[in-house]
Every structure is written in C-alpha cells, then in structure tokens.
C-alpha cells in the first residue's frame, strides 16, 4: 500500500545526514562535556561549535543560545523563567500579554503564571487567526513585562506579524522605565521563514528539533543578552547555569546539522512546498462544503488546514490512515479532553464545523504523487462519511 506522511507539523522524519552526524556521539565520542579530561573536552568542543553554528544562522551570539529538551521546555523557560526573574517572584506586580492561539506549552505556562497572580491579557485573533498589533498597543500597561505571540500557528498555519510587532515593542521600550520583553514560538516557522532574531526584534525565541528533521528530545531557546531568566530545572551549571542537566550531545549535533540543511536551497524548497500545498488546497476545496482555515495568503508553506461539513475529524483521520495517509484533526474526539480546538474557536469557527477539522502538513520530502494520491482518496472518504451522517 502507498504510504503518504502528511503530518509534518506534528513531527518529521530524521534526515539520514542528520543521523550520520549524530552517530559518533552515540558511539566513541561519549564523554561528559563537564569533565576536564580529554574525553570530556572533545565533546565540550562539539557542543560549543554547535552553539556557534546556530548563532550564525539565527544572527545572534553563541552565548545567547540555550539548548533544551524541546520547544515546550523553551516556552516554559521563556515565560515562567523570565517573569519569575523580572518580578523577583513577586508575581502580583506583573502583567503579560499572550495570544489566545499559542501552543499548549505557551498557553499553559501563561495560565500557570495567572494562577500565581500575574495579570494576563489574552489576545484575540480575527477570522484568519491574525493578531491585531493595535490591540497589543492598547493592552500594554506600566507593569507589562512580556508579550508572547507565536510566529506561525501549528493548527492552521497563519503567519503572525512578528517583525512588525518587534519594531513596535522596541519603539515603546525607548520611552519606558521598565522593559517589555518579546517572545515568539518559531517552531513551525523555522523551515520556511526568516528567523533572524535581529530582524524579528525578539528577546526570546523557541525552537524544536523534531519539526525540521532532527530527532525528538532536543530544542533551544534564544535569549538575548540582558534578558533576565530564572532557571526552572535546578542542578549543575550547564547552559550558562540556566538549564541544569548533562547535555544531549548527539541530539544537539543533530539539531545543528538539520538546521544547516534547512538553509540549503531554502528558496527552492519553499517554492516547491508552496506549489504542492496550493495544488492540495485547490483540489480539496473542489469538494463541496469544505472551507480553508487560516489566512489564504499569510500562510506557512507546509500547512493546509480545513473544516469539512458533515464529516467528523477523527473518522476522516482513521479512514485516511486505512488508505496509508497520515493527517491530523483538532476535533473534540481526537483530543483527550473532548473539547474542540481552542484555536478554531478563537477564530470564531462554530463547533459544528470545527468538529470536522482536518490538517495536512507537508515537508520538503513530499512529492506531487503524494498530493495526487490524497486528492484521489479524500473525496471518497468524505463522501462515505456524509452518506452515514443524517441530513440536517
């Protein structure tokens, strides 16, 4: 049976070149970077070389990169660690602004802070999932310490105006006594958009390796010099004392290799993925009663997302899986809490529609044949489910 993996926003396949770069660090090069003997020092060098390479790609200094276990950890560190440091634990003093469509890691970190007494302004989005910079400007108070908005939403692919927002915050900071720090979760953006931290004007930026063909279990946080952070994980002095724990060396090396591969022929890859995604969107919209979710133009190349009338998300995913196609859905039945997607809800998509949500996410390894296969199979699946459903 043909197998087509279109769930790359969930995770990606490790690139063979990434695995090859990692292998020595899972075999002979096994020292602990904290050891002062040659076994350890050789590995320490590999970690610091990796840090330099990331820094040159993101446009920052090596000392501004903290390796973590994943973007969830990076988001926790950015929100909870930053607010704790800046308020000295006096949480009731602080105000933060967070978009209502953040990934759970950002959303729940903000909710945690809210419980501790931090005042949180939850930003709304429009029907396309776009935030409004003016709303942020209005929400800013004297005690605002953080604005956190994701670069690209993982469920529907809308690109938020991060660079513009960065500029606005920079301007405001010139006239303020206390600084507003700016964080973005760039997990879904890194492969296709410019993530130069100077250009974006961010103080904090989260990334995860497994979304761009590195292994699971490694991520990073860019933290601009001077941005205060209290570490969440106590222990040794690794990562400038901000994240205790022996470095995941092989995965760090893998993450850097994957990041270098992202930069190779980036323009051509973007063009190709956009072409395939647009072919997919055009084909799927031909099926009646299907609506695109997210912004039609300001949209990340690899994410195509829809709501399908008269077919439930989980049922579609299972039937697609039967035909060898991997996709995902934000329907209530695919979530453990039986709530439909909060992202689609924030976009004012009614629950009866979000119940039939469907996301297909591509990678640079997706082929035109893959897309043709989906366009052949999906209409039949939707037709089958609509036949079972009552006519309302």
């Amino acid at each position, binding site marked *: 049976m043909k197998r087509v993996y279109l769930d790359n926003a969930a995770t990606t396949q490790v690139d063979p070149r990434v695995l090859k770069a990692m292998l020595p660090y899972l075999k002979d090069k096994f020292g602990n970077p904290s050891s002062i003997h040659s076994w350890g020092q050789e590995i320490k060098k590999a970690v610091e070389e990796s840090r330099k390479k990331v820094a040159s790609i993101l446009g920052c200094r090596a000392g501004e990169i903290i390796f973590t276990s994943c973007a969830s950890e990076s988001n926790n560190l950015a929100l909870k660690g930053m607010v704790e440091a800046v308020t000295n634990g006096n949480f009731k003093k602080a105000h933060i602004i967070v978009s209502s469509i953040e990934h759970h890691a950002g959303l729940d970190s903000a909710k945690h802070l809210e419980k501790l007494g931090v005042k949180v302004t939850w930003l709304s989005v429009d029907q396309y999932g776009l935030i409004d910079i003016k709303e942020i400007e209005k929400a800013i108070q004297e005690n605002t310490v953080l604005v956190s908005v994701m670069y690209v939403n993982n469920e529907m692919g809308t690109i938020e105006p991060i660079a513009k927002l960065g500029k606005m915050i920079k301007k405001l900071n010139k006239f303020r006594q206390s600084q507003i720090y700016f964080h973005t979760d760039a997990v879904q953006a890194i492969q296709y958009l410019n993530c130069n931290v100077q250009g974006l004007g961010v103080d904090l930026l989260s990334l995860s390796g497994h979304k761009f063909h590195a292994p699971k279990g490694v991520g990073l946080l860019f933290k601009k010099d001077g941005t205060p952070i209290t570490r969440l994980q106590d222990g040794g002095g690794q990562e400038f004392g901000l994240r205790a724990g022996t470095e995941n060396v092989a995965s760090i090396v893998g993450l850097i290799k994957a990041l270098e591969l992202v930069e190779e022929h980036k323009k051509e890859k973007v063009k190709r993925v956009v072409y395939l995604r647009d072919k997919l969107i055009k084909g799927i919209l031909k099926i009646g009663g299907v609506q695109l979710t997210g912004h039609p133009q300001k949209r990340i190349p690899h994410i195509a997302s829809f709501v399908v009338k008269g077919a439930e998300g989980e*049922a579609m995913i299972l039937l697609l899986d039967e035909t060898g196609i991997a996709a995902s859905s934000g*329907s209530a039945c695919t979530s453990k809490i039986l709530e439909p997607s909060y992202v689609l809800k924030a976009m004012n998509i009614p629950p009866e529609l979000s119940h039939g949500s469907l996301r297909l996410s591509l990678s640079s390894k997706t082929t035109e044949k893959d897309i043709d296969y989906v366009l052949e199979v999906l209409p039949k699946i939707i037709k089958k489910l609509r036949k079972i459903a009552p006519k*309302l």
Partner: protein
Amino acid sequence: MDLNKLYSKKVIEHFKNPRNMGEIKSPDGMATVGNPRCGDIMRLFIKVGKKNGKEHIKDIKFQTLGCAAAIASSSMLTTMVKGKMLKRIEKINREAVARALGGLSAVKIHCSVLAVDAFKKAIENYRQKK
C-alpha cells in the same frame, strides 16, 4: 497509528462497514439526538411489527455524524435490537453496547450513549404516535 490500539477490532469493523445504515421512509418511530455543537449527532428510524399481539423491532436504520466510536456503537446497537421483542430489548443500556464492541476507552464511552438514547427516544416517539 495502530488502529487496533486506539479501538477494538470490533469497533473498527463496524466503523468501516456500518450495518443498517440509512433511513426508513415513513417509520413508526424516529428520534434525533445529540447536537451539532457538541459534535456527534444521530438519527434513528424504527419499524415495529406485531406477532401474536407482541411488538418487535421489524426494521431499524441509523444515520450518524460523529467519530468512529459513535458510528460503531450506532451500528452495533441496530444489530443488537433488530428482530427482538420490544419489551425485552427496550431497557438496553450503553454498557451492553460497549461490551458487544469489545470495550471502549473511558474517553470514548460518552460516544456510545448517543445510540442508546436515540433508540429509547425512537420507541417513545412510536408510543406517542400510537
């Protein structure tokens, strides 16, 4: 995704090949339960026959908008009650349907409530019409 781990073989089998799906023109009883806002919606049609003065489910058809568990429990319920005496089968509960499906995980139990609810309401509708 390994389907067998998410759901029992029975659930997947009924989900993929639902029995008694469709509608009955001029049914003796009919009910629609659930609502589109919570997701699942089910419509059930019954035809009631009489043998020696005793009522039985002569025919039953369903239509369901919902997840695999909702569709499979609709299908399973229809096979469990079709041809049975009304008096004997009208007290069927969701546990019986879930059991017949080889079990449902805790989060999916609520999906099987719909089928039993629809069946009871369809009988109610039939009795009101009588």
